[in-house]
């Protein structure tokens, strides 16, 4: 009898490690430092457990109601402790290290997840967040849907028989001198994934001179404005930078706006939709992938 119980327990551990681990008390008060991670916590139904977020957690907007713990690299130990968290979630950018050590000493579980933008990292991260929330199935289902969505996107692109459009992605602030997304940036990554050819040759985000903008002559201009949205961002940018109005993109009206919060924090839940919307604008002749991804005005 006893032996059967032990064997049964052992089998349960081997077969369903997540459930058994979940049997230990789950952290109920979470602090999240990292935009995409906070978004995933909300996505997996953990918003009620969040008691504080950092300044990069901008999405969804309801997170702004929570106490702000400041910038993820400049966390303050006592400030976070005053929220009485059981868990601090963040990427490897989180710091400074002495503060993390102090938090650990105070009994806070510090979870550092990698922020590399690839699917295997995301799979592991979602699994971890799901386990901590006590929702491992929901996490793996969500990941499968995510991967499928990206796969559909890739298939859709593979069938596009046109040359990739020449794209320039700029990040601006209320139209002021825009920064062009160069190589190695999240902006360039999104453009390439959406099937565009990112034009700038430099590394990182840099301002470009008027002449350089004209010489690049993008066919599509993607505008990520930190303050203005939609038409307002577009109009402000063109008003402040008349040179842009002379580019092919502006003359043919192929200007689209992008939510700048998509550019921070790695692979967030909204990336596939953002990519689909961008692809639809890059290849206007093709049937958009999903209804919600139809080109927005």
């Amino acid at each position, binding site marked *: 009898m006893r032996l059967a119980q032990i064997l049964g327990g052992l089998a349960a551990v081997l077969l369903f490690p997540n459930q058994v681990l979940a049997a230990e008390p789950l952290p109920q008060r979470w602090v999240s430092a990292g935009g995409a991670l906070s978004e995933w916590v909300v996505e997996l139904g953990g918003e009620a457990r969040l008691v504080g977020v950092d300044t990069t957690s901008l999405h969804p907007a309801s997170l702004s109601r929570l106490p702000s713990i400041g910038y993820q690299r400049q966390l*303050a130990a006592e400030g976070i402790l005053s929220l009485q968290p059981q868990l601090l979630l963040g990427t490897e950018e989180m710091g400074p290290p002495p503060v993390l050590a102090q938090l650990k000493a*105070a009994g806070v579980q510090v979870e550092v997840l990698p922020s590399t933008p690839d699917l295997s990292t995301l799979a592991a991260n979602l699994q971890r967040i799901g386990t901590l929330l006590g929702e491992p199935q929901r996490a793996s289902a969500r990941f499968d849907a995510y991967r499928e969505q990206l796969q559909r996107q890739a298939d859709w692109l593979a069938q596009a028989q046109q040359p990739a459009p020449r794209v320039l992605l700029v990040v601006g602030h209320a139209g002021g001198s825009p920064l062009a997304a160069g190589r190695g940036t999240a902006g360039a990554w999104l453009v390439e994934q959406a099937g565009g050819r990112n034009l700038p040759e430099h590394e990182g985000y840099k301002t470009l001179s008027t002449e350089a903008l004209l010489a690049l002559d993008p066919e599509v201009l993607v505008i990520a404005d930190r303050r203005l949205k939609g038409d307002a961002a577009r109009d402000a940018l063109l008003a402040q930078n008349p040179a842009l109005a002379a580019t092919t993109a502006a003359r043919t009206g192929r200007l689209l706006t992008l939510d700048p919060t998509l550019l921070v924090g790695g692979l967030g839940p909204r990336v596939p939709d953002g990519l689909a919307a961008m692809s639809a604008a890059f290849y206007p002749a093709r049937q958009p992938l999903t209804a919600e991804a139809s080109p927005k005005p």
Partner: protein
Amino acid sequence: MKPVLTPRSLFIALGLLLALALWLSLALGPVSLPLLDTLQAALRLLGAPLGGAELDQAELILGQIRLPRTLLGLAVGAVLALCGVAMQGLFRNPLADPGLVGVSSGAALGAAVAIVGGAALGGLPQVYAPYLLSLCAFAGGLGVTALVYRLGRRDGQTSVTTMLLAGIALNALAFACIGLFTYLADDATLRTLTFWNLGSLNGASYSRLWPLLLVTLAVALWLPRRAKALNALLLGESEARHLGFAVERLKRELVFCTALGVGAAVAAAGMIGFIGLVVPHLVRLLVGPDHRVLLPASALAGASLLLFADLIARLLLAPAELPIGIVTALLGAPFFLYLLLRGRT
């Protein structure tokens, strides 16, 4: 200008002020601890076998977070103010601050190299990154100051004017290099650099505290021994020399103390402005220019002021934190203007 206070009453006042600052710094924070718990935890840290497990949290917050932070504030405030006095004495100008000999810009350059270069190298293990930053900042401050001093020397004589001008030139050069690193940095690195330039006592730990405490102690013991020489220097260099003081050696010691003290402070807490400029000024207004009083009084006042500024920094936006450089500049700049305008009428 007639002193407002006698040295005796000033020291009593400053002593009380510092005691108050120390107590508040230990007793107040985003986590509100009952006064009794704070006291018991403090006694327990001193070795008294008090209370049970319910005090563990209070002991941890007091011992591992607030105490190192308070000691850091104490040391940084005192050493910045002392070096401010040394620089104002050396340049015989109340507007001088430690930045003049290049120690701040050199440290900032060192930090920029460490932050941007460290990120470009793919990042050191997170555990070592803060030490690299502190070492680079300290080395940068010492290096640029040594260069300024070297440029000011000719035929065995140190010209303070040449040093001042060389300091301005090297500051400009250092800031141009920092600008270049800023341009090369990515977004996250840039924010780290910006925050570092605003200073913070956050994340103080004992392992990083000891070097600074030792340097502070050395500077605080050494500079007052040169108080008489500094007083003589107020009359002029040749006058001090005729009074029998070794002026060249004094200059060398003052520059070295400043490079060491400010370098260590900046390496531990980032750039914190206005303490070195305003505090000696303020103390001089209260008791007059005698360095025998000015040096220790400035150390006390600088430590108190920085601790009060840190209280504001940690409480105002809790649970987030304001960089302390913003607080000291916000308090210091208007006060400095007030001193200037008051002197005019």
